[in-house]
């Protein structure tokens, strides 16, 4: 199987899975909004951590390596039960915006 053929297959698969991936970004966005307003509960925080973890795993697999790295940062921020520092709100907001923008662009061929 050539790289081109694999890339074509992956692009087709991405078209099918993009919505579920973007739904994970939405979970991170929602949790970040709740964090900003002081209403983030444990369940939403855990859901955001899971979504970021899954996103980190799948985004790079489709070639979105920078998005995968940002998802890891989000996962790390939401991990655990310690209070999340206020400075993380801005960082998480920026991550959510960048994730959304990057994942809207079709995957690049290697």
């Amino acid at each position: 199987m050539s790289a081109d053929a694999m890339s074509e297959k992956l692009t087709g698969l991405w078209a099918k899975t993009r919505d579920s991936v973007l739904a994970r970004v939405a979970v991170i966005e929602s949790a970040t909004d709740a964090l900003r307003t002081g209403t983030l509960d444990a369940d939403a925080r855990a859901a955001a951590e899971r979504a970021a973890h899954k996103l980190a795993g799948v985004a790079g697999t489709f070639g979105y390596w920078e998005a995968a790295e940002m998802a890891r940062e989000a996962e790390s921020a939401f991990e655990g039960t310690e209070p999340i520092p206020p400075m993380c709100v801005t960082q998480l907001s920026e991550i959510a915006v960048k994730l959304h923008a990057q994942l809207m662009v079709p995957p690049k061929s290697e």
Partner: protein
Amino acid sequence: MTKTVLIVDDDDDIREVGQLALELGSEWSVLTANSGETALALAKSGKPDAILLDVMMPEMDGPTTLIQLRADPSTCDIPVVFLTARVRTTERSTLAALGVAGVLSKPFDPLKLPDQVAEVLGWVVAT
């Protein structure tokens, strides 16, 4: 003889990309399972030559699934490779110490996955 690999991951996207990568990048057959419980059943019935096992899964995680596989005489000898998005060295060492053939990272490059799997298992990839 064609090898059969069982991919276990609760994430639909990872299972699909993994299956695509292994089927197109090698001559292996691929089975998939979305949970540890399904994996145990498929390991018994499908007799795969190796299992790629996600670490973080709800209900039955990867290490627990591994223990169950090892406790069953019909599946105890199947080589297992962990797939993990955890990148900390200590966590990877802990996983490796559980007696698996190897630990591979997520995200993975689909073009390289067959070679990575073959390398940890000592297989030859026929393309």
